[in-house]
């Protein structure tokens, strides 16, 4: 699964740490999600979507292998 969290963060000029604090996780979790090492839970995906004021589908997209 691909995501454009890094881009969305850049739009809001938000660091990984700031995003992590807003949604209540550690900075390394944001890092792992951005790097594609970890697929977040639905709850976390919805929280991110709320921060970026977008729908989950606009942030996360399925790949052919999913």
């Amino acid at each position, binding site marked *: 699964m691909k995501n454009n969290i890094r881009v969305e963060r850049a739009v809001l000029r938000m660091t*990984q740490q700031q995003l992590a604090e807003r949604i209540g*996780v550690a900075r*390394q979790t944001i890092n792992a999600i951005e790097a594609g090492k970890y697929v977040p839970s639905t709850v976390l995906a919805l*929280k991110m979507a*709320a921060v970026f004021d977008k729908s989950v589908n606009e942030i996360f997209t399925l790949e052919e292998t999913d």
Partner: protein
Amino acid sequence: MLTKIVITLKKSKKMKKDYLFPYQFKWIGWSLFIPFALLFFLAYGCFHVIDDDFISFKTLMIMMGELNIFHGGHEAKGFLFEVGRQGMFDEICLVAMSVGLLFVAFARERDEDEYVEHLRLHSFAWAIKVNTVLFILGTWFFFGGLYLWFVLFWFLSLFLIYLAKFQLELHKMRKGVNDEE
């Protein structure tokens, strides 16, 4: 919208992963495990400094033995339940060691979240696989009294392998973060 997220976060923190112990249990666990592991080694390792009867008291003992019951003229074997005085030093050490390791293994990390939980699950699955391989090898090659010792350490090794793998994963995760951004 932000207020809504904050309220949700507060609620989710209350409900979060109740199978984990508080962070301090990591240190309580190590301070239980290390001294009792050393005492156990002193009693049963190379030195035999401490005797098992060092601490003894009356306890329920469950054993296999000859039962005084006759089934069609044959003496039966079965479980015997007795209450008697036993040297309990090794039992105390082993209970303390296993409780200590349980506390360490399930103590919350300071930065515990769903990714750390994911690493826990991954490490636990890995440890069970490795420990099963150890069990197969031990069962195949150890015989007699040595097998009892093997089974004893095999149980503790599940925690130790899990902890080693989990700490390695945490280290890699934290190191990875420092390289980025």
